[in-house]
């Protein structure tokens, strides 16, 4: 269990956090730029001496204002991957990787496991200043993992990279995070990174955490403001089930709903996450025939949000246990008579696949 009750007053901004997070798995801290995500990580890591409050990580007290306890950053064991890699230019790749281990002693992790997982072997002989941004970030992640951390903090590690490097790095990060049985806080404002990596989510806004919960639940909870905006989305989890019809594969969710996806996208993939934009889901009372839309699923309306100022509302649907959001105009809602308990069909126009191994 991670308990963070901290306030940090900066010149033009106040961080005010009071959350409990699971003591294992990846918690993605998600929110717009400037909402205090980085300050939160810095507070947890001990890099903000002005932060006051109480901080315990899996039973270890890192800070307790009441007793005056304040563990300095170098004694906390919070591995930190910054947005900029911050490699030490005077050290080799190996020197960087082993920097933390030499200070804190070797941990559970084998050096070669990290080097293999992050595909660093061919970089070992190159000066760190000649590595690309993505390569440097891989070394920085390896360095943090090898420092025998009790908690891993990643502050938008992909933000400074181009799209191609991001695409290559995400699966490596995913694998690397599984090497260690320690919790990780991963800060991002990219919903794709979130859907891909998160077990758990903490939503942030204006220096506060507005909601926390498992990734499959947070976004479909209409109490959370993020479920009631035009780019709301839902997250579903399933497994690839191979070819269903010629040219068509499918993903079967944990609750048995079948989502068709283009061929070649999920063959042999055990775990897949689906991100469905609420505005890509439309509602119909009768099952349409002769339509180009592949994914039409029966659903029951569970909840309807109040309309926004733009006249749109979010409808939360229950698909045999899977929760799916639809963003429709309030006018349509009235026309169809959408209210809790209504049986209808959800037409899903697009599904984004985010795979895991």
């Amino acid at each position, binding site marked *: 269990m991670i308990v963070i009750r901290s306030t940090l007053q900066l010149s033009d901004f106040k961080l005010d956090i009071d959350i409990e997070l699971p003591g294992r798995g990846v918690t993605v801290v998600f929110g717009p730029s400037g909402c205090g995500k980085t300050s939160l990580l810095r507070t947890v890591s001990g890099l903000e001496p002005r932060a006051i409050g109480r901080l315990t990580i899996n039973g270890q007290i890192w800070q307790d204002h009441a007793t005056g306890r304040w563990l300095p950053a170098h004694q906390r064991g919070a591995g930190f991957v910054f947005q900029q890699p911050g490699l030490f230019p*005077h050290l080799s790749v190996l020197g960087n990787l082993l920097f933390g281990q030499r*200070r804190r002693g070797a941990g559970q992790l084998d050096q070669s496991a990290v080097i293999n997982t992050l595909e660093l072997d061919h970089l070992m002989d190159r000066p760190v*200043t000649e590595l690309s941004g993505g390569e440097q970030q891989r070394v920085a992640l390896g360095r*943090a993992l090898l*420092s025998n951390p009790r908690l891993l903090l990643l502050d938008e590690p992909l933000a400074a990279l181009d799209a191609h490097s991001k695409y290559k790095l995400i699966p490596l990060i995913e694998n690397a995070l599984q090497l260690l049985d320690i919790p990780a806080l991963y800060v991002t404002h990219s919903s794709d990174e979130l859907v891909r990596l998160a077990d758990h989510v903490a939503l942030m806004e204006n220096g506060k955490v507005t909601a926390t919960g498992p990734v499959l639940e947070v976004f479909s909870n209409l109490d959370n403001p993020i479920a009631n905006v035009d780019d709301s989305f839902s997250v579903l989890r399933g497994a690839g089930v191979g070819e269903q019809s010629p040219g068509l594969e499918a993903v079967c969710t944990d609750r048995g709903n079948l989502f068709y996806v283009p061929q070649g996208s999920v063959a042999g993939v055990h775990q897949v996450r689906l991100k469905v934009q609420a505005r890509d889901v439309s509602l119909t009372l009768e099952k349409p025939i002769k339509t180009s839309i592949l994914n039409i699923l029966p659903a029951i309306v569970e909840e309807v949000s109040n309309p926004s100022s733009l006249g749109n509302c979010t409808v939360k649907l229950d698909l045999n246990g899977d929760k799916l959001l639809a963003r429709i105009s309030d006018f349509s809602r009235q026309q169809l008579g959408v209210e809790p308990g209504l049986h209808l069909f959800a037409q899903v126009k697009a599904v984004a696949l985010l795979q895991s191994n």
Partner: protein
Amino acid sequence: MFQPTDLQALAITFKLAAYSTILLLILGAPLAWWLANSKSKLRPVVEALVALPLVLPPTVLGFYLLIALSPNGFLGQSLEFLGLPGLAFTFPGLVLGSVIYSLPFVVQPLRNAFFALGRRPLEVSATLGAGQMASFYYVVLPMTRLGFLSAAVLGFAHTLGEFGVVLMIGGNIPGETQVVSIAIYEHVEALAYAEAHLMAGLLLGISFLVLLLVNLLNRRHSLVGSQ
């Protein structure tokens, strides 16, 4: 050729420059660190004090030091109270004067190097488990080593050329406090131009080589830094 007193003056000059440089690095590094990182309201005041020897005539500095070091002066009295010998007209007195006189030449390159380094490398090393001493030794020192080198070379070279302060507080005792610059002055006063030429040329050559070295090092900065 060189007279024995000239060789003594050379030896004293280099010894003075070496001692002063070592002391300046030890004292200047924390001061420069503070100047690079402090948000204190006192910082501009300290900055101005450190830069004072740049603009002050060395005789002014030397005069105040002489007053302070005299048996009735503040430093002289303190030393006497502690049972220590006085510093006026002694070699340790020269070292003290040089340290003050060359302070900006050491502190400013160091401050610039620390400023350019920024906080991030230290934050990284702290999250990797390095305490302050380890961070200084394994991160700050190697990453700012060219700043340290520039500071050492400038401090050394500047002390070599010291005249006014030394004359005021060191007097001109051959074999004890007579340095090269003063020996040259003596030769010129005595119209011994050949001897003056020899020593002046030597000092000119050394100073030029030292500055050339600094410039070459600065040009190679990125190359050296990447190794």
